[in-house]
C-alpha cells in the first residue's frame, strides 16, 4: 500500500492506493500548520478505510509550499550567489536580471571568482582558493546562511563547484547550506544559476517543512520512507528534498496529469483539464509530461526548470456564449463569468448564457435547472458545443509530438462540455476519481535520472557516446532509488550545436524506473 498526498494552496488531496487501485480518497482545505494538516489528512484516510500503518510501503507528498514562498517572497534565507568563471561572465553578474524586491527578500549578495570550464572540459581559469576564502569572510560578515555556487559549463564538469563547496564549508561551517548548480539545472548559465539561487533561498524553509511532514507521518505510526514529488513527475527522498526544494516547483500540474492518465489506463495521451475560465492541455508520452522547451519565468526570475509544457486556452464552464443573428455562428469565451457561475448562469437562475448552459441544454449534464435552458435555440446549442469541441481539438493538435492518433483524457468540472469524440477522431476518456488526480499522481511517481551535456563526438564514436549518456542516466536513476530491473530511457534528444566546428552535440537523456520498495 502507498499513500499519496497533494498539498495545494487551497486544497489537500489524499489517496490510499493498493497497486493502482484507489482504496480511499479525500479532499480537505489546506491548513496553515503543515504538520497538523498532514495528521488530519491521514486520520481521514484511516476513518474512511482502516489500514495498518505498518503495511504502508511509501508516502508520497506533492507540495506547493516552496513555489508559494518564492512568489510571496517570505521565509527566504539570506543568500549569496557565488559564480566561478572569471575572467569570463563579468559582463552579467549574478542576480542582475532579478526583480529588486526579490533581491531584497533574499538579502542577495553576488560574488565572482576565477574558475569555470570550456564546453570541452578545459579550464577557463584555475580556482583561486584565497579569493574564495576572502569571499567567504565577506559572506560571514553579512550574515549569509545559504550559498548558491555556479560554475561555467558545470554540466560538463562539476569539479570546481565541488571544490569551492569544500572550501566554503571549511570557512563557513556546516550550518551554512550550499546549493550547486550542476545538480539543479541544465546548460544556460544565468537560468541555471537563478534556479540555484532560488533553491538556496528556500533551504531553511525546506528543512522545517520536511521535518514537519516527516514528523506527521512518523507520528501516525508509519515507518515507511517519505518522498516528495518533483517537477518532472519523479520522486525525491526527504534528504534530497531538504537540499533541492526548487525541484518541487511544478509538481502540481505534473501530478494532476499523471494521475488522470493512470485513472484512464492510458500512458500516452493528452490530458485536458477544463476549469471555469480556461482549459489546460498537456501531453503525456509513456506516462511523463512533455517538458516546455522555453525558459520559464517564476516570480519574475528566468529559469530553466524542467516544467511540463501546458497550453491554456480560454474555454471553460463559465465561458460566455455569444451568437450572431441566425444562431449558427457563435463564439465561446475567452470572457467568462468565472467563479460567479453559480449566480450568473441561466441554469442557476442568472441572466448570462454560458458554456455550462448549452451543455445542460444538450443533455450532457444535469446541473441546476434544465427548465431554464429548455427554450434555447437547438441550432445555437449545437453550434456552441461544436465550437468548444473544435477549439479543444485544435489545442490538443498543437500539443501533439507525433502524427500517431492520441486519446484524450478529460478532467475538471468543465469536462461536461466535451463530446465523446473530438474532431480528428480523438476518443475522449473520462476517468472516475479525477478530483484527487493530483494525489494519485504523487502516489504513483517513479524515480528518475537525467543527463544534459555537450559532447564533442569524434568520427565513428557516436554510438559509444550515446551509450555512455544513456548508461549515465540509468545509473543516476538507480542511485536515486529506482529498481535497476525496471529502469528505462523515457526521453532522448540529440541536437547538433550550430557554428561549432567538430561534431559538438548536445545530448539530453532521461531514465526512470519504479521505486525500489522495501517489503513490510
Amino acid at each position, binding site marked *: 500500500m502507498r499513500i499519496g498526498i497533494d498539498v495545494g494552496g487551497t486544497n489537500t488531496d489524499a489517496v490510499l492506493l493498493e497497486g493502482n487501485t484507489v482504496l480511499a480518497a479525500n479532499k480537505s482545505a489546506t491548513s496553515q500548520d503543515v504538520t497538523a494538516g498532514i495528521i488530519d489528512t491521514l486520520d481521514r484516510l484511516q476513518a474512511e478505510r482502516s489500514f495498518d500503518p505498518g503495511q504502508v510501503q511509501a508516502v508520497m507528498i506533492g507540495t506547493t509550499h516552496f513555489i508559494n514562498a518564492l512568489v510571496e517572497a517570505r521565509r527566504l534565507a539570506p543568500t549569496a550567489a557565488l559564480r566561478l*568563471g*572569471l*575572467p*569570463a*561572465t*563579468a*559582463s*552579467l553578474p549574478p542576480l*542582475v*536580471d532579478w526583480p529588486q524586491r526579490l533581491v531584497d527578500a533574499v538579502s542577495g549578495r553576488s560574488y565572482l571568482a576565477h574558475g*569555470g570550464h*570550456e*564546453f*570541452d572540459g*578545459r579550464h*577557463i*581559469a584555475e580556482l583561486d582558493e584565497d579569493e574564495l576564502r576572502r569571499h567567504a569572510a565577506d559572506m560571514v560578515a553579512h550574515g549569509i546562511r545559504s550559498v548558491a555556487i555556479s560554475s*561555467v*559549463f558545470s554540466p560538463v564538469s562539476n569539479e570546481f563547484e565541488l571544490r569551492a563547496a569544500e572550501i566554503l564549508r571549511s570557512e563557513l561551517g556546516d550550518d551554512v547550506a550550499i546549493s550547486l548548480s550542476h545538480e539543479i539545472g541544465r*546548460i*544556460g*548559465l*544565468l537560468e541555471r544559476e537563478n534556479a540555484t539561487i532560488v533553491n538556496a533561498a528556500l533551504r531553511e524553509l525546506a528543512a522545517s517543512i520536511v521535518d514537519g511532514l516527516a514528523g506527521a507521518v512518523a507520528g501516525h505510526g508509519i515507518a515507511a520512507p517519505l518522498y516528495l514529488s518533483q517537477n518532472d513527475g519523479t520522486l525525491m527522498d526527504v534528504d534530497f528534498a531538504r537540499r533541492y526544494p526548487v525541484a518541487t516547483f511544478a509538481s502540481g500540474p505534473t501530478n494532476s496529469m499523471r494521475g488522470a492518465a493512470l485513472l484512464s489506463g492510458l500512458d500516452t495521451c493528452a490530458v485536458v483539464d477544463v476549469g471555469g475560465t480556461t482549459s489546460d492541455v498537456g501531453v503525456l508520452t509513456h506516462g511523463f509530461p512533455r517538458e516546455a*522547451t522555453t*525558459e520559464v519565468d517564476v516570480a519574475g526570475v528566468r529559469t530553466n526548470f524542467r516544467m511540463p509544457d501546458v497550453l491554456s486556452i480560454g474555454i471553460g464552464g463559465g465561458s460566455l456564449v455569444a451568437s450572431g443573428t441566425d444562431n449558427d455562428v457563435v463564439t465561446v469565451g475567452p470572457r467568462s463569468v468565472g467563479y460567479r457561475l453559480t449566480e450568473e448562469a441561466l441554469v442557476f437562475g442568472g441572466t448570462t448564457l454560458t458554456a455550462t448552459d448549452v451543455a445542460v441544454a444538450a443533455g450532457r449534464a444535469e446541473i441546476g435547472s434544465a427548465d431554464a435552458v429548455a427554450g434555447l435555440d437547438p441550432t445555437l446549442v449545437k453550434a456552441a458545443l461544436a465550437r468548444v469541441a473544435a477549439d479543444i481539438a485544435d489545442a490538443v*493538435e*498543437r*500539443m*501533439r*509530438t*507525433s*502524427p500517431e492518433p492520441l486519446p484524450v483524457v478529460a478532467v475538471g468540472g468543465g469536462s461536461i462540455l466535451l463530446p465523446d469524440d473530438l474532431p480528428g477522431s480523438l476518443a475522449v476518456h473520462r476517468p472516475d476519481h479525477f478530483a484527487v488526480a493530483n494525489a494519485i499522481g504523487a502516489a504513483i511517481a517513479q524515480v528518475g535520472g537525467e543527463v544534459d551535456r*555537450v559532447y564533442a*563526438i569524434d568520427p565513428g564514436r*557516436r554510438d559509444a557516446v550515446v551509450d555512455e549518456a544513456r548508461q549515465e542516466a540509468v545509473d543516476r536513476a538507480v542511485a536515486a532509488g529506482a529498481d535497476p530491473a525496471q529502469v528505462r530511457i523515457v526521453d532522448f534528444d540529440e*541536437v*547538433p*550545436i*550550430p*557554428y*561549432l*566546428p*567538430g*561534431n*559538438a*552535440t*548536445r545530448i539530453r537523456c532521461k531514465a526512470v524506473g519504479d521505486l525500489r520498495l522495501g517489503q513490510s
Partner: protein
Amino acid sequence: MTTLTAADLGALARGAAVLGTGGGGDPHIGRLLAEQALRVHGPVEIVSVDDLPDDACVLPVAMMGAPTVMVEKLPSADQIAIAVRTLAKYVGKTPTHIACIEAGGVNSTVPVIAAAQLGLPLVDGDGMGRAFPELQMVLPTLAGIEATPMSIVDEKGNRGVFDTISNAWAERLARSATVDMGCSAIVSLYAMTGAEVRASFVPGTLSQCLATGRAIDAARRTLRDPVAAVVDRLGGRMLHVGKVVDVQRRTTTGFARGDATVDGLDTSLGRLLVLRFQNEHLVAEIDGAAVTTTPDLIIVLDTESGEPITTEALRYGQRVSVLAAPSDERWHSPAGIELVGPRYFGYDLDPIRALETV
C-alpha cells in the same frame, strides 16, 4: 540622429531575429548584455550611413562562434570593447564609429555593447541585411574591402590579430582560433572609412530591425495579424502557412544542417513546404519545387504570435508561417551569387528570388 535606449532593445532583438532567417541563436542573452551596458554607460547614438563623414574610422564588431556556448560562457566585462581597441591599435587609428556586420541573434546587439562601452556612435546599417554563417559573406567583400586586419579576443584576455591574403583565409584562421578560445570569441574586422561604409553597407538595417520588431508588437496589441505586418514591412510575400510535421537534423561540421517539413493549413491546405537549413534557412520548396533560395530571405514565424523561430528551436507541432523577402540587390550579382548562392551551400539550384514565382 537618434538614440537607442534599453527600452528599444526588445524590438531590436526581435526584428534582428526576423532578418536573421533562423540563424544567430537565441537573442535573449544579447539583449541582456546590451541592457546591462546601456544601464551602466547610458544610451547609444545612432548615425545614418548618409551622415557619416567620408574619413570616419568605422570598426564593425561581432561575436564569432556558437551562440549556444555564449549562453553559458558569458563575455568578460570589457571583452567586446577590447576587440575594437585591439584592432584600432593595430591599424593605428582612433575609431569614430561602431557598426554591425550582420543582422540576427547576438550580432545585432554586440555592437550596441561596444558602442556603449566605448562611448561611440553606432552606424545604422550592416554588411549583409540578413545573417550568413561565414565572415567573408558580406557586401564589403563584393566591394573589394578586406576583412583583415582583424582582431580576435577571448574572455580570458587573449588577443590576436590576423592580416590575411583573402577574406576566405580570414574566415578559416579565425574559425580555428575561435575553437581554441572555447568557441565563443569577439572579433572586430572590416575596418572602413565612412565613404567605404556608404558604398558597401546595407543602409538602415537597425531602423529596419526596430520597425519590424515594433510592427510585430503593435499588431499583437491591436489584435491584427503580426505575420502580415512583417510581410508588409519587408516587402515580401507569404509562401506557406502550416504545421511542422517533421524536423530532420544532421551533425555536420560547424553547421546545424537539416530539413523541416511544414504541412499546409488554411490557404496552404494540401501543399507541403520543405525548408532546407544550415544554421539559416537557405531553400524553401513547395511540393518538390524550389520557390525561394538564398540570398533572399526565408523567414519562419510563429503564426499566432509572429515570434521568429530559430532553426534550433523548430519542433514538431509548431504552427508556422513561412515568408520570403528580397535581399539587397547586390547579392544577386554574379559575384554575390558565387559567395552566398545555393551552390555555395551544396544545393544544385539556380537562385530563385523571393518575388519571382508569384
